[in-house]
Structures are given as structure tokens and as C-alpha cells.
């Protein structure tokens, strides 16, 4: 029987760590430490993006996180009712965020790393945007033991 917990915070960056902690505790028995940390990073990046870009820092809106735990995977779905991620960015193909010249300090990226980190941290990522609702679904598979 899968575990299903719905979590929700206000669109406030200060609240994101609480979701992070709760999601970590839900994953901890199922995933190893490294995989649980990867899920935490992906969830935090997704929520930060929604709050910063989707709601443009506007508080008082809800960001919802649905966590489903099964024997084989942890699924985290982040739901918002804000501006969606622009389609060209979603469809952006392989990300080049970390393909920078390490010797060119002035040219180092200070941002634009979040979506790439989400893709690298999870096994499956998909994004469905409908009028008034965006759902980012992220799956981490449980390593067979």
C-alpha cells in the first residue's frame, strides 16, 4: 500500500526548508542518504523556482507537494497556480548550464542551474502545464537491494 502525503506551504522562500525537511523524513527509510539528498535538492529547486519566477516573490499563494511512496519509487509532484515555466525552457533539450569555462571567473554562472539540477537529481521529470495549474512530477527509483 503506497504512502501518500500532501504537503503545502505559502509561496515564501522561508517556508521551503520545512517542506525539504518533511520530504527528507518521508524518503529516509526508503532511499539511501545520497538519493534522499538528491530528492531534497530537486524539491527545493522546484519550489524556489515557483516562488521566485512563478509567483515573482508574491506571498500568500499555495505551493503544494504530493509525495507518493511505493516499494519501487518515490514520486514528488509539485503543483502551483502561477505563471508556468516558458515552453522554450521546458523543451530546451540538453541543458548546458555546467558547460562553462572554469578559468573565466567573470563568465561563471550565478543562476540558471536549478532546472538542470532537478533533471540530474531525479530519474524521471515531467512537466504538465494547464490553464491555472502547473504540475512538475519527479520520480526517484529505489535502488534494488
Amino acid at each position: 500500500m503506497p504512502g501518500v502525503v500532501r504537503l503545502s506551504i505559502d509561496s515564501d522562500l522561508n517556508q521551503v526548508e520545512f517542506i525539504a525537511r518533511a520530504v527528507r523524513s518521508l524518503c529516509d527509510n526508503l532511499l539511501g542518504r545520497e538519493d534522499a539528498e538528491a530528492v531534497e535538492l530537486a524539491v527545493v529547486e522546484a519550489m524556489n523556482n515557483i516562488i521566485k519566477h512563478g509567483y515573482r516573490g508574491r506571498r500568500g499563494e499555495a505551493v503544494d507537494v504530493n509525495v507518493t511512496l511505493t516499494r519501487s519509487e518515490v514520486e514528488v509532484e509539485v503543483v502551483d497556480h502561477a505563471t508556468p515555466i516558458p515552453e522554450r525552457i521546458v523543451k530546451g533539450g540538453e541543458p548546458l548550464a555546467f558547460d562553462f569555462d572554469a578559468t573565466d571567473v567573470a563568465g561563471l554562472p550565478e543562476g540558471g542551474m536549478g532546472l538542470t539540477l532537478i533533471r540530474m537529481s531525479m530519474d524521471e521529470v515531467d512537466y504538465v502545464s494547464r490553464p491555472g495549474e502547473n504540475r512538475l512530477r519527479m520520480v526517484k527509483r529505489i535502488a534494488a537491494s
Partner: protein
Amino acid sequence: MTLNDTAHGDVLVVRVEDSRIDAARAPEFKTAMIERIDRGHVRLVLDLSKVDFVDSSGLGAIVSCLKRIGPRGNLAVAGAKGAVAKLFALTRMDRVFPLHASVDDALKSVAG
């Protein structure tokens, strides 16, 4: 965001006392670091041994510090472990900031 400063010759070691450098804290962290750089501390060791989570905004703030220092000095990272070390590796920022296990090792690399 609590930062703890210790001077070692012309190098300032800044230990982050919070367990997270995330998007909520990154602006304050960056302001506090830039303030030190602008006071002339251009050789810095950032001690992350008490930090167990950094997100891309926190990492971006660390990169900003390096840019602010520019060719005048250097910034070395010490004590990054677990998810924090992993973030530097994933983003390939470990090519920019070699990760030092201890503050002592980092001090050697940043000394003028």
C-alpha cells in the same frame, strides 16, 4: 545567517554557522560576504563544515563572491561534505573551487 570570522595572517576564514545556504538565506549571505570583500578581505576561506544543504541560489552567491574578488585575491572552500560536496561536483563548480577537507588545507591554497 550567522558567520564566524577568524583572521589567519592576511586570510579571513569565514565559517557559516547555519546548516543551510538556500534561496531564502542566499541574499543575506551574499551581502555579508561582499561587505567583507569590500573591506579588503580578498583572500578568503569559506568554511562549510557546519552546512548540510546548499541549493543553486546559495552556490550562485558563493560564485558572486569569487567574481567580486576578481583577480585581486582568492576564495577557497573548506569542509564541504555530503550533499554540499555533491552540489559542487554536479555543477562542476569543484573545478572553480577545489574542495579542501580542512581549513588548514584551504589556508595553504589561498595564501598570498
